[in-house]
């Protein structure tokens, strides 16, 4: 009996210490991982900072203006081109009248032709026609 108890306690001691050592090493490994992850977070944050600065730098208004001038057929918005949603006419759909529902076509692109190409050459953005007498 006494023998058994001794063996049991020794066994228990061995198991518990093994478990403890195992846990301890696991924690150490996790701490190491945490450290490296934190280091990577710092590095990544620094990269994000640089990329954000780069993004802001590439999106300078003067660069955008120049690119829009060269590649977009857009001019300055004239006052008559500005409207609000209220100005749009409303289409009333009658509840009683039968409304044709469009059915899917067999070949939707049969009658499609690509839009005419935008005219080449430089376009001036952010400018508008100044009457001759004002120039």
């Amino acid at each position, binding site marked *: 009996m006494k023998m058994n108890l001794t063996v049991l306690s020794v066994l228990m001691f061995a198991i518990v210490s093994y478990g403890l050592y195992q846990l301890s090493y696991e924690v150490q490994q996790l701490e190491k991982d945490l450290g490296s992850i934190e280091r990577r977070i*710092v590095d990544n944050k620094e990269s994000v900072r640089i990329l954000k600065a780069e993004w802001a730098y590439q999106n300078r208004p003067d660069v955008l203006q120049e690119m829009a001038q060269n590649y977009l057929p857009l001019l300055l918005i004239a*006052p008559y081109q500005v409207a609000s949603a209220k100005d749009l006419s409303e289409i009333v759909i009658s509840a009683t009248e039968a409304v044709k529902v469009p059915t899917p076509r067999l070949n939707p692109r049969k009658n499609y032709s690509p839009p005419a190409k935008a005219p080449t050459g430089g376009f001036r953005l952010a400018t508008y026609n100044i009457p001759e007498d004002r120039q």
Partner: protein
Amino acid sequence: MSEMTWLQKSTRSRFKLSKQTRSRKPDGRQAALHLDGSAKETLEQGRNRLVMAGAVFAFCFVILAGRLIGLALSGDEGASQTAQARENSAKIALGDKTRAEIRDRNGVLLATTLSTASLFAEPKNVIDPHELAAKLTTVLDDMSEAVILSKLSSAKNFAWIKRNLTPVQQYKINALGIPGLHFRQEEKRFYPMGSLVSHLLGFTDVDNQGIAGVEKYFNGQLGGSNDTAATDVYLSVDVRIQHALRDELSRHMSIFRAIGAAGMVLDVKTGEVLGMVSLPDFDPNRPNDFSGDSKFNKVSLGVYEMGSTFKTFTKAMALEAGKVGIYGGYDATKPIRKAGFRIRDDHAKKRWLSVPEIFMYSSNIGAAKMADDVGPKKHKAFLTKLGMLDKPSIELPEIGAPILPPRWNSLETMTISFGHGLSVSPLQLSSGIAAIVNGGAYVNPTVVRRNLEKGLMAKQVISAKTSNTMRRLMRLVVEKGTGSQAAAAGYLVGGKTGTAEKVEGGRYKRNALVTSFVSAFPMNNPRYVVFAMLDEPKGNAKTHGFRGAGWTAAPIIGRLIARIGPILGVTPVDEESDAIQRAMFVPINSREKKLASF
């Protein structure tokens, strides 16, 4: 005591063998050895010693075991300490000590801090300087071999080769693998927008301490301290508006060959500055490459005699004081002579002018008489209320105090009524005009995004009725008067021109003008004040040689408002519609003699 000494000293026989005679069992036990005397003593002593040694060893092992268990339980203390240190340094890099960012009102990045690598060499450890220089020039293409060699030739143990490299350069230099070269991490303030927001932002010195502009004013907040974290600053400017303003100003500066220009856009309700440009400007990324002249902020630090734009204040004051009504007028036939001075009109009509006409044709005589009616005391009090006579308060270190006349009597009142004799900054003028048009409430201007939920400190300076009349008068100037070129169809622009001769050495320089135009739009419910100023513009063929504000400064306003109107969300209106015409109606009440039909 060693064994030898014990042997020598012992006189007794070492051991004695005695035959066992009284043995009961005749098996092999009778050979037992009985130790007696000195031998027994020796043996016991030896055992004692063994026990002692065993105890010492056991003690050591117990300590070792204890330490081992301790280590297993708590982990490596040294390692945990380095982890702690790493954590601390990580926190610093994560933004506790990094100088915070500056952004515009929409969150566009204006200033940030990047950690960059700087390259230095230890000349003593460099094996072959010539080879090093040759290799380095392949990466640092802006440095010549000779420059690198001269840096290496110094006897010092340390020599900077280049500060603040780009990450690509750092990678390439690392790849070269030259011994004797090292990197050091440094923080560098970076302004992605370049010179666009230069005067407002200011710049920092090599230690990342703000020494101008917002960088200086908010140095504490941006840099943080031991107990407060560094926090970002959101400015009230909008880079899109700032760009449009700078673009138009620089374009017209070159058209009219002006030596400088300034402009600002101000929200009349909140006092927020949406754009503030002073030309020539500088690149805050490399402030040392620019002269002190270009670092001078003409908007907040420069004070100028603003000329006729001051007539807006004179008119508002006279109407508010009830000295003259909109139907009244003054005789502007002859120039005023007072104390050796002669006040005359630039656009002389030589007849009686009604109040709207005085404003429309910018009559100095009319304005002077109007101000004289009110009197110097009230004039001074009125301008004080509008913040013209005190140093303005705004979140910038560069603020110019107005230059007041040494005394303020009837003559000074007359000259100040049309903007001479008192120098104010464009910032003061714009915020004063904002108060005139927004219903009469003076709001302190700010360059920081305002939280409107917190409420606004406003001070009523003129009545809403006077403000309404002033809006119509300012609209009249653009519609029919000197500022017709400032019109931007649909945006109902109103404003006032101002042309002043520059003062140099106490005398007016006839050939050097400062032309300005202060405007607000849309005039039926003003939301923004737009100011533009040119320093020494020259007339050209298109302006028929004229260089007055109506020819040089007003076109800037017209083009600018057409550009920024859609960005600011101002809905264009039909200026010819009845409702608008009625809202902007002013009885001109002219007594101009129409030619009788022959």
